[in-house]
């Protein structure tokens, strides 16, 4: 593997940070409007000891919510792809559910489910089940006709066809859904923490901004973004190990 795809973004990021730093210094922008990268680093370093607890709290919500979504969305995706009646009955409702802005319904959910983890899981689920379900259904319906002819002439039952043709064919689609779902799960967790939590990176951002402590808020945002990237790469890594055939050498992966 060439080193260029790693080196180039590091260079461009360094240049960006440098320009940012110089601008805040040259135009004397106050830290409560736009803190310099150096100020953000210092602020992050000061609260570094508190990060593990907040990271763990958010990560727990992200992963638990993601798991719940996967366990519901994949079977639901399969169901609506194989049964036209189920699809016609349920799909419009799901589209409607997905159309509700989660930030709008979040306060209502907190009233219904309380201020504990349950509310955050529900919020999380509402954000991330839809892409996973749609990806699953799309993958199953996308199965080439020739594959199905093959399974039919060899005498495959419905279940065998599902397990040996449709599901493997859908697997890369499902992984695309999981990658999107994982990043949305982070968003869902933060929205949940904005509204109810006393802990977590989302809480850290809210509490810092109420004190106009922008350096600390931005340091938290950066930690959050790093977490999101690592989670995304983890899903991609699992796909690479589990379904190496589905990753084309020249694709954007």
């Amino acid at each position, binding site marked *: 593997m060439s080193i260029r795809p790693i080196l180039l973004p590091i260079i461009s990021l360094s240049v960006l940070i440098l320009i940012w730093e110089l601008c805040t210094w040259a135009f004397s922008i106050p830290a409560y409007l736009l803190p310099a990268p150096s100020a953000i680093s210092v602020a992050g370093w000061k609260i570094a000891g508190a990060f593990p607890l907040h990271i763990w709290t958010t990560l727990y919500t992200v992963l638990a919510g993601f798991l719940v979504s996967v366990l519901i969305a994949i079977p639901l995706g399969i169901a609506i792809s194989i049964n036209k009646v189920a699809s016609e009955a349920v799909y419009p409702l799901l589209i409607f559910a997905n159309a509700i802005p989660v930030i709008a319904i979040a306060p209502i959910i907190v009233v219904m489910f309380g201020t504990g983890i349950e509310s955050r899981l529900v919020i999380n689920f509402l954000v991330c089940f839809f892409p996973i379900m749609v990806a699953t259904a799309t993958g199953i319906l996308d199965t*080439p006709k*020739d*594959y199905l*002819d*093959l*399974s*039919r*002439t*060899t*005498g*495959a039952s419905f279940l*065998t066809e599902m397990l*040996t*043709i449709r599901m*493997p*064919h859908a*697997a890369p689609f499902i992984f695309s859904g999981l990658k999107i779902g994982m990043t949305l799960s982070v968003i869902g967790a933060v929205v949940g923490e904005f509204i109810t939590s006393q802990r977590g990176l989302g809480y850290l951002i809210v509490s810092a901004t109420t004190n106009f402590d922008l350096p600390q808020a931005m340091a938290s945002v950066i930690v959050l973004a790093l977490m999101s990237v690592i989670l995304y790469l983890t899903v991609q890594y699992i796909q690479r190990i589990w*379904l190496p*055939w*589905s990753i084309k050498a020249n694709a954007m992966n």
Partner: protein
Amino acid sequence: MVKDVQIENAGKVFGFGGPKPFTALEDVDLQVKAGEFLSLLGPSGCGKSTLLRMVAGLEKPTSGSVAVGGGEVKTGFDNIGLVFQKPNLLPWLSVLDNVLYPARVKSRKLVKTYRSRAEELLEQVGLSHVANQMPDSLSGGMQQRAAIARGLVMDPDILLMDEPFSALDAMTREDLQFELVRLHQETGKTFIFVTHGISEAIFLSSTIAVMSSFPGRISNVLDVEFGYPRALDMLSTPHAHDLDETIRSIIYGPRT
């Protein structure tokens, strides 16, 4: 077991009873003897693929009957091998597992039973060295060889092929034509081969059913009098020339 195919008065209308019914096949009568190599030859749109799919049980005739070995065709119950226009290998299975796929469909246990046979077939088509590779890493010709091995793995009564060489380059096609004739001799099975290549049909088959379109029918059934194995110079004999002219005049009519 090697079986024959009896097609009697078979017709196929798509969208039957709908606003725009389309007659793909009409009054098709065709007898394929057990162990014969029959080519279905005709212009595109003459319904040759539809006829093949009816023998495979993938389409039901809307009139008449299609019988394999005396019994009506039932998908999945008849032991029929099908080779597609594209190799149609499953990208998530290795070459060997692709060849074993028809066994996997029946049961996991059969995969073990048929493993040595699959390996033998891969040897026969010259693919032993790539048995454990993924299909994507193979050339088009190699993939189609693997697909033929898959078609033969369950020791089918009949092997059906739907223009299997049309996507290959000329040299690979010629290699595979020789190999197919050899496989036919070695297995003694009934082969039905759909093509729109006149010389391909003459080179491969013992019988050629020439089809015409709108609606699709069988217009002539011609015997190829060459024995097996085949050699390329047979194509430059007077008999081959006569066959070629006859087929052209059936398909195109008089041409200047």
